[in-house]
C-alpha cells in the first residue's frame, strides 16, 4: 500500500496530536458533566426524588459519554503506542483507582433505582460521587505530573522502567503542584456539572447547582491562574537539543533532550498560543457569571469553552512534548518520536474521518431527542423505568 504516502509522516503526526486533543476535550466536555454531576450529587439532592432528578439528567447519555474515554484509550494505543505503554504502567495505582471509579459509575446508574431500599440507593449514590470525583481529581493530578516530567527511562530495547518502590511511586504523584492541578480539574468539572444541571434539572436541584457552581467556578479560575504562575516561574521545562527530525523513526532515544528554564519559552516562540489560556479564563469567568445570573444554555457553552481552553493550553505549552521524563530526559516522548508507523497513522485517520462525523451526528440526534428538563413529575411518573 502506498496511498498513505499522500500525507507526509510529520503532518500525520501533528494531525494525530490534534486528534488526541480532540478526544481528550471531547471526553472532558461530555463525560465531564457526568463526573461533575456525580461529584455534586450528595450536595444538590437531599431527598431521593431530588437525587433522581440529578441522575436522570445524565443517565441516558452517560453510557455514550464514557465511550470518549474508551476511545481515547484506544486511540492512544493505536496512534501513540509508547505513550500508552509508558503512561498507564507508570501511573499504575492511580489508573487502578480511576478504573474502579469508572467501573462503578455505569453500574451505579443502572442499578441504583432498581431496589427501593434507602440503604441500597444511598450506597450507589456514594458510588456515583466517587465515580465522578475520583477520576476528575486523578486526571488533574496526572496532568500536573506530566508537566513536571515523569520518572521513567527507556532501555535500548524501549522497555520502560520507573524509579521508586510501588507505593512510593504512587505517593510521588501527589506532590503540591499536581495536587493543585488536581483541584483545578475537579473544580472545573464540578462547575461544568453545575452548568449542566442548571440547564437540565428543575427546581431546587438546579438552584443548588448554580450556587455551588458559582463558588467552584471561582476556585477553578484562581487555581488555574496560580498553577499558570507556578508553571511559569517555578517549574523547569524541556527542550529538544540540536536538529529536530520530524519524520524519523519512532524511537525516543534517537533525539537529545535537556531541561530548560521554563515551559514559558513556548509562548515566546509561538506567541499566538496565548489564545488558549485567554479562552480558558474567559470561558470560566463567563460561566461563573452565567451561573449567578441564572442563564442556562449560554452558561454551558461558556463552560465548554473554558474547558477547551484549559486542556488546549496544556497541550500547546508542552508541544512537541507529550510525556517528558524527569529521570532520563532523553527518554521523553514527543510528537516526533513516539507515534505509530506512517501506515497505521494514515489508516487510523481514514477511519476517524469516516466515523467521527457519523458519531457526532447521531450523538447530536440523541441529545435532541432527550432535550428538555427533568423534574419531579418525570421521576414520579416513570418511577419504574427511570434510573
Amino acid at each position, binding site marked *: *500500500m502506498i496511498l498513505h504516502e499522500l500525507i507526509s509522516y510529520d503532518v500525520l503526526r501533528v494531525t494525530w496530536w490534534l486528534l488526541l486533543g480532540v478526544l481528550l476535550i471531547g471526553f472532558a466536555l461530555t463525560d465531564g458533566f457526568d463526573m461533575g454531576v456525580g461529584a455534586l450529587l450528595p450536595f444538590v439532592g437531599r431527598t431521593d426524588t431530588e437525587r433522581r432528578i440529578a441522575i436522570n439528567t445524565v443517565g441516558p447519555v452517560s*453510557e455514550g459519554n464514557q465511550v470518549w474515554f474508551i476511545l481515547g*484509550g484506544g486511540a492512544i494505543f*493505536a496512534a501513540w503506542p509508547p505513550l500508552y505503554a509508558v503512561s498507564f504502567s507508570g501511573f499504575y*495505582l492511580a489508573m487502578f483507582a480511576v478504573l474502579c471509579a469508572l467501573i462503578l459509575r455505569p453500574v451505579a*446508574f443502572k442499578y441504583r433505582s432498581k431496589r427501593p431500599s434507602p440503604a441500597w440507593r444511598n450506597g450507589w449514590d456514594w458510588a456515583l460521587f466517587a465515580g465522578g470525583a475520583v477520576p476528575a481529581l486523578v486526571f488533574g493530578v496526572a496532568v500536573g505530573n506530566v508537566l513536571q516530567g515523569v520518572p521513567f527511562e527507556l532501555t535500548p530495547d524501549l522497555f520502560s522502567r520507573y524509579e521508586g518502590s510501588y507505593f512510593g511511586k504512587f505517593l510521588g504523584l501527589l506532590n503540591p503542584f499536581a495536587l493543585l492541578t488536581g483541584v483545578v480539574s475537579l473544580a472545573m468539572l464540578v462547575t461544568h456539572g453545575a452548568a449542566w444541571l442548571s440547564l437540565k434539572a428543575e427546581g431546587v436541584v438546579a438552584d443548588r447547582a448554580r450556587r455551588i457552581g458559582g463558588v467552584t467556578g471561582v476556585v477553578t479560575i484562581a487555581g488555574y491562574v496560580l498553577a499558570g504562575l507556578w508553571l511559569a516561574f517555578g517549574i523547569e521545562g524541556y527542550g529538544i537539543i540540536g536538529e529536530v527530525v520530524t519524520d524519523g523513526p519512532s*524511537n525516543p532515544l534517537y533525539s537529545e533532550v535537556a531541561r530548560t528554564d521554563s515551559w514559558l519559552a513556548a509562548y515566546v516562540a509561538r506567541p499566538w498560543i496565548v489564545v488558549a489560556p485567554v479562552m480558558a479564563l474567559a470561558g470560566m469567568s463567563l460561566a461563573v457569571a452565567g451561573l449567578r445570573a441564572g442563564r442556562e444554555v449560554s452558561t454551558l457553552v461558556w463552560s465548554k469553552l473554558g474547558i477547551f481552553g484549559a486542556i488546549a493550553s496544556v497541550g500547546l505549552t508542552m508541544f512537541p512534548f507529550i510525556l517528558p521524563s524527569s529521570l532520563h530526559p532523553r527518554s521523553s516522548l514527543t510528537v516526533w518520536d513516539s507515534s505509530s508507523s506512517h501506515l497505521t497513522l494514515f489508516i487510523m485517520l481514514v*477511519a476517524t474521518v469516516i*466515523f467521527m462525523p457519523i458519531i457526532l451526528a447521531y450523538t447530536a440526534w*440523541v441529545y435532541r431527542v432527550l432535550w428538555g428538563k427533568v423534574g419531579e413529575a418525570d421521576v414520579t411518573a416513570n418511577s419504574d423505568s427511570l434510573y
Partner: protein
Amino acid sequence: MELDVVELSRLQFAMTAMYHFLFVPLTLGLSILVAIMETVYVMTGRPIWRQMTKFWGTLFGINFALGVATGITMEFQFGMNWSYYSHYVGDIFGAPLAIEGLMAFFLEATFVGLFFFGWDKLSRVAHLAVAWLVAIGSNFSALWILIANGWMQNPVGASFNPDTMRMEMDDFFAVLFNEVAQAKFVHTVSAGYVTASVFVLGVSAWYLLKGRHTALARRSITVAASFGLAASLSVVVLGDESGYAASHTQRMKLAAMEGMWETHEAPAPFTAFGIPDIEARETHYAVEIPFVMGLIGTRSLGTEIPGINDLVAEAEDRIESGILAYDALMSIREMRDATPPAIRDTFERHSGNLGFAFLLLRYMDDPRDATPEQIAMTANDTIPGVLPLFWSFRFMVALGFLFIGVMAYFFWRSSFRQQSYPRWALRVAVAIIPAPWIAAELGWFVAEYGRQPWTVDGVLPTALSVSHLSVQDLLLTLAGFVTFYTILFVVEMGLMLKYIRKGPFQDIDETEAWEARHETRLRGGAAPVPTPAE
C-alpha cells in the same frame, strides 16, 4: 507455580477477561433476540410482544451495565500490566481496538440509553431502529475485538522494524481479513447467540413450570428455540472452521488440544478419550477414532498433521535462526545507517524467528550465549499445557452438541406439537442455563492458554510482555479486582433473580383494549378495527 510479575499479570488478565466474558455473550445474543421481539411487535401491534421486549430488555440492561464496566478494564489493562507488549505490537494491535470504539462501541453505548428512555419520546419504528442499532453495535464490537485477538494468534501483515524495536503494520487488509480472526468472530458471536437462547429458553421454562406468565414464556421459547437451533448448529460448524485455521496457523495449539505427540500418517485418528502425559510424552488410555482428526483438521485424506515432538524439533531450528536475527539486530542497532548490507540481509532472512530467540531471555541476558542444552530446553517450553487443553476442548465440544440437541427438541415441540412441553424437558432447560457460559469460558481458555508461551504467536513471548511493576503492585490490584468483581457479581445476580421472579410488567389496560378491538373481528368476522399508533 511461582508468583512472579509474569504469572500474576497473566492471572490478572485471565481473571478480568474471563469475568468480562460472563457478560459479553449474553449482550451479543440478547440484543438481537430483543430486537427480533420488538420487530414482531412493530409488525403485528400485539402488546404481548412489547411486554416481551421490555421484560427481556430489562434483563439485557442489567447484564449490559456490567459488560461495559468490565470492558473498561480490558481497554486499559494492556498499558497497565503489559507495557512491553503494548509498545511492541501497539502499531498493529491498537488499530482494531480504536476502530472498535469509533465504529461499534460508540453506536451501542449511545443508543442503549435511548432504548430504555426513548419509549415515549420516539415513534415505534424509530425505537425499533434504536434496538437494532444497539444489536448491530454490539456485534460489530465483537468483530473488531476478535480481529485484534486473531492477530495475536496469527500475526499476519506486519514485520519487525529494527529502528523502532517493534512490529509495524505492512498490510492492514491482511490484518482485517486474517482467516483466524474471521473464523473466531463467527464462532464467538454464534456462541453469544446460543448463550442468550439458552438463557431465554431456561427462564421461560421456569415460568411454565411455575405456571406464570405463560403467554410470554411460550412465545419466548418459540423465538429462543428457532434462533438457538440455528446458532448452536453454526457455533459447532464455525468452531470447526477455527480448528481448520489452527491446523496451518497454530499447529502446536492444535497438536496440544488433540494430545498428538507423534506425527501420524495421514489421515490421523481423533482421540476421543485419553490422559495426556507431558512428562512421558504420550497419551495414556487413548481411545482413537480412525481418520476423523485428519478429515476435520485438514479436510483431506493425504495431509499430515504434525505432532508435538516434530514441532519441538522445528522450534529448535527456529531458535537457532532467531539467534542469527538477534545478532544481526544488535549490529544494526549499533551501526544504524552504516550497517553493511550483508548484515541487513541476514536480519531480513531470519527476522521471522526473532521471537524464538527472545524465548531464551528467560534463562539468560544474551541469547547469543545459549548452549545446545539451553536451546533444547527452551524448545520444550513451546509446548503448552496439554492435559487441560485436551479436556477443556472436549468438554466445550460436548456442550456444543448438547445445545444442538436441546434446541432441536424445543424447536420441534414448538413447531409441530402445539407448543406443549413435558415437565422433564422444561427442567432440563432450566438446569442447563449455566452451560453456555461454561462452554464459552472453556473456549477462551483453549484459545489463549493454548497460545502460550506467547502473547503473539511466534513473535513475542509472554514472559517479555509485562510492565516494570512489583509483585506488591500486582497483588494489590489483583486483590482489588477480585474483591470488587465478586461484589459486583453478587449484586448483579441478585438483581437478575429479582427481576426474573418479578416477571414482566403487565400493562393490563393496554392488553385488554387490544383484545377487545380484535374480539369483534374474531367472533363476528367484522372488518378489523385499525390499530391506532401508540
